[in-house]
């Protein structure tokens, strides 16, 4: 155990660190929508526009073995859309690749 008061503490460490390696800011909303029958769609909204969403979707399609597109929405920007319930997959993948932190992911739906 060390004496905490004697430690040098840089209060701005977080801020400095946050600015350079964190491209993603704000929440990534992951939603699910029911289609006809037991089919579903997964949408990923709020990924930073600095990322190349087309490349992301290409990787996701390959990884999850599903189809998907990037949809340009005037209000929400570019939205990733994947077929099937990929909520778990996309959460894991986004954290694994470091595109978003686990606390930035917000999963909606049932």
């Amino acid at each position, binding site marked *: 155990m060390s004496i905490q008061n004697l430690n040098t503490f840089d209060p701005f460490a977080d801020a400095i660190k946050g600015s350079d390696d964190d491209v993603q800011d704000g929440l990534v*909303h992951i939603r699910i*929508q*029911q289609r006809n029958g037991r089919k579903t*769609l997964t*949408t990923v*909204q709020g990924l930073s526009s600095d990322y190349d969403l087309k490349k992301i979707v290409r990787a996701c399609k390959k990884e999850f073995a599903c189809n998907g597109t990037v*949809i340009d929405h005037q209000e929400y920007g570019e939205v990733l859309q994947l077929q099937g319930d990929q909520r778990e997959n996309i959460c894991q993948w986004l954290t694994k690749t470091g595109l978003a932190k686990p606390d930035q992911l917000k999963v909606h*739906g*049932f």
Partner: protein
Amino acid sequence: MTEEDSIFDPQLKKKKKKKKNFDLDAALADGNSNDGTERSETATDKENLEPPQNDVDGDADENLDLDSFGKKKKKKKKPLNLEELEATLPEGTNKIGAPTEGGDEEIEDFDLDMDFSMTKKKKKKKKDLDELVAEEEKERADEKDLENESQKWVGSDRDYTYDELLTRVFGIMRDKNPEMVAGKKAKFVMRPPQVVRIGTKKTSFANFTEICKTLHRAQKHLLDFLLSELGTSGSVDGNSQLIIKGRFQQKQIENVLRRYIKEYVTCHTCRSPDTILQKDTRLFFLQCETCGSRCSVASIKSGFQAVTGKRAAIRAKTA
């Protein structure tokens, strides 16, 4: 986390009940005002146990419990229950909505609904009854065991075990400050949502209004949240049930409800469910009645909705 998790958890409810019964003994010994409430509670329990001839009355009691679950004012509960014991059956049903202070404006609307749904509830209640009986018996058995064990060493010379000491210290704590006990007992037990499929494409959430009432939230707010979370459309129909488009199971609805409770019902600071949701300059604020904290909560946004219907139909509508 624990509290949100526990909301639908029967296990925890049981545990709490156990504690409460312990307290009964303690309170009896102490002779303070608390035991009145306890006794009345056991009385209601007994009434619930009683077979159907008392059905309506029991039903009323249950509803009342539901109303006051969110609050920790046990004292308030006591007179009401007593009243109800004395009251005849139909009167009991009328009283359901009246005594709560929480839901204020909604109550008038709900009262009517409740009466309508009475017949339905009866059927369901019988099932509950059986469970209750079984649970109660088990509890009592547990109870006695524990009780005996905790008292065993008092007279004897042998060493006490950790568990015995633990029960003892908790007993003392409850004896000394009944308020804390009341706080502990502010359990937030909810009926599980009743979800039934209507046909192949729609789902009915039968006790939607009841749950709104339990949570002390406006129907519209919960409705907005549910629909935006599930990404569908739906409405409340004449029988005060919510009809949602799409297939959903009870578990799924339960999940969403749990998230709602976490965000909009339990206090973010002290996790007490005793909160009020206010709208203030376009923002919703959660005001806690227990700790007095006030914080803003996320607004309900549906976000991006993909096109799932027929595109031709949409085109026809817009053009």
